[in-house]
């Protein structure tokens, strides 16, 4: 087991290395002087010269990469000249809303979609099954920001139940924080629920044909026990895989959702950084999201052994 974890850890190194090279090349491939691009539109020539020296821009490309990656590994992500802060400070400031949004969405989406998928599979062909499948296709097709605005219109403007936009830090006022998380999480959940419900239904359907399900029924176990303990547990691996892959959708969706609801998170930061062509910030955010994505999928890979002891590495 430890051996397996070690091997999997090693296997993500080349992936992350490629990501780092791609993100590094991103800036070098921009037309014009990277130092001028990093410094932004209002930089003085002294600042540009300073950056050029720091990045070693007169050195060969691989030396530049070594300097850049060396800095990043030491936690030095550079400075945002647009926001007048180091990128590390900027991210520390903006990370809370994004983590909160992602956590609320994950909890909500998984707790709604898995029972939905299991029930749809159990009642295959029923009205409920058709509704779930219809919703799944809809969820893929309606863009997050349209859903977001529909929810705002209905619950915030017409009914006045929830605030329209904005964010309150979790430490400041928990209730207000929660109030402002409801609509964004719902918005972000739709696509995610569609994805998980669909895969849950498919993998539970497959498992329900197995002999051990018939045996469990024959033993006289209740439907609930058969579905939850026998069917769902055996269907867990594909569901977990899709949840892991869906994290990418979640991250992409966070960018849009944060913009709709005015949450000052990393997604909003990414858009602001692109609009102001603030490359150190863009590079760091993309690198960070990718590392998180890869690590989460690694953890899920490892968790297979817990859910399905037949899987031995």
């Amino acid at each position, binding site marked *: 087991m430890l051996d397996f974890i070690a091997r999997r850890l090693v296997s993500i190194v*080349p*992936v*992350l*290395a*490629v*990501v780092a*090279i*791609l*993100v590094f090349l*991103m800036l070098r*491939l*921009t*037309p014009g002087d990277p130092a001028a691009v990093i410094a932004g539109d209002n930089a003085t020539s002294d600042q540009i010269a300073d950056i050029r020296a720091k990045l070693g821009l007169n050195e060969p490309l691989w030396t530049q990469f070594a300097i850049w990656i060396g800095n990043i590994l030491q936690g030095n992500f550079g400075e945002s000249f647009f926001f007048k802060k180091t990128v590390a400070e900027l991210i520390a400031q903006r990370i809370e809303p994004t983590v909160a949004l992602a956590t609320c969405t994950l909890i909500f989406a998984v707790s709604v979609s898995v029972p939905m998928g299991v029930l749809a599979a159990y009642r295959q062909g029923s009205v409920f099954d058709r509704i779930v499948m219809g919703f799944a*296709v*809809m969820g*893929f*097709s*309606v*863009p*997050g*920001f*349209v859903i977001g*605005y*529909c929810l*705002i*219109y209905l619950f915030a*403007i017409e009914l006045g139940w929830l605030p*329209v936009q904005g964010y309150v830090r979790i430490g400041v006022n928990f209730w207000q924080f929660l109030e402002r998380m409801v609509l964004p999480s719902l918005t972000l959940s739709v696509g995610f629920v569609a994805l998980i419900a*669909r*895969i849950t239904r*498919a993998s539970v359907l497959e498992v329900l*044909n197995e002999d051990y399900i018939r045996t469990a029924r024959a033993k006289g176990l209740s439907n609930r026990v058969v579905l939850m303990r026998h069917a769902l547990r055996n269907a867990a691996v594909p569901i977990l895989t899709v949840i892991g892959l869906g*994290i*990418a*959708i979640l*991250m*992409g*969706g966070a*960018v*849009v959702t944060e*913009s709709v609801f005015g949450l000052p998170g990393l997604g909003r930061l*990414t*858009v602001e*950084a*692109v*609009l102001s*062509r603030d*490359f150190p910030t*863009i590079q760091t*955010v*993309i690198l960070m*999201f*990718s590392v998180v*994505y*890869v690590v989460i999928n690694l953890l899920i890979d490892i968790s297979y052994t817990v859910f399905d002891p037949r899987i031995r590495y």
Partner: protein
Amino acid sequence: MTVATEDIVDSASIAAATAKRPSLWLIALRNPNVIIGGTILLVMVAIAALAPLLGTVDPTRIDPAARNKKPGTEITMRLDDGQTVKRVAIMGTDSLGRDVYSRVIYGARVSLAVGVAVALIAIAIGVVIGLVSGYIRWLDGIIMRVMDGLMAIPGILLAIAMVSIWRAGLVTVIFAIVVPDVPRVVRLVRSIVLTVREEPYVEGAISVGTPTWVLMFRHILPNTIAPLIVQGTFIAAAAILVEAALSFLGIGIPPEIPSWGNIMAEGRTLFRVFPHNIFYPGIFLAFTVLAINIMGDGLRDTLDPKMSKKV
């Protein structure tokens, strides 16, 4: 579930059965999902193609006298020759007085063009890389590591990064959406190449001295067509959504081009008072993507039954 005895059939009856079987494409065209999705999509294509004939005005025409009108308001338009014409703005106007109905109708052109262009380009690039990767062993490792790296960056973020490099424009946006899709096509094509190259007919072709490129294009490539069409529809649907998202965020297609995302971006600031700027393009967007996805589901069930069992 097929039973083993069903698999044992003499070759004569296989020949008879295949001769009678209607073409796969005909079966696909009879699938209800393909019919429903395809019909809605055809209507959208017709709307896009016939945009000037559908009672629209110039979608970029700014009219300071008719700003922020609710849907159904009658507005008076001054034509270039000085005459005035009364016209009902059925979807209202935006904060620059542009007619939302005309913008939504013309927006169909942009969205469909982006969807089709992204799917075609991603497949073209992906097929070439996938064939090379599946067939030339020593390149396979390098190519697949790069593809793994690309797949590790969440799609929209990669597109955002691309857009930030080459300033916004229609071509930039299309290319930015293509890049994250390429690895998915590469993996699909590569996996097919890897299975097909072990088939007896490919070995046969090699043994009679068929040149590699003929082998690739005549014997291997046809196997990828059906799954690629299915994949292509899903890429097109996702591309339309990503374009709308990028434009909505203000980092996509330049604002003067009327795309659905741009109309919604314009409507954001005054959403509380004039939600129509978001809702009308949103409905068109959702319906188009829904139609393509439904059609894709139907095509997958008929053309690529192996895939449909997996998901």
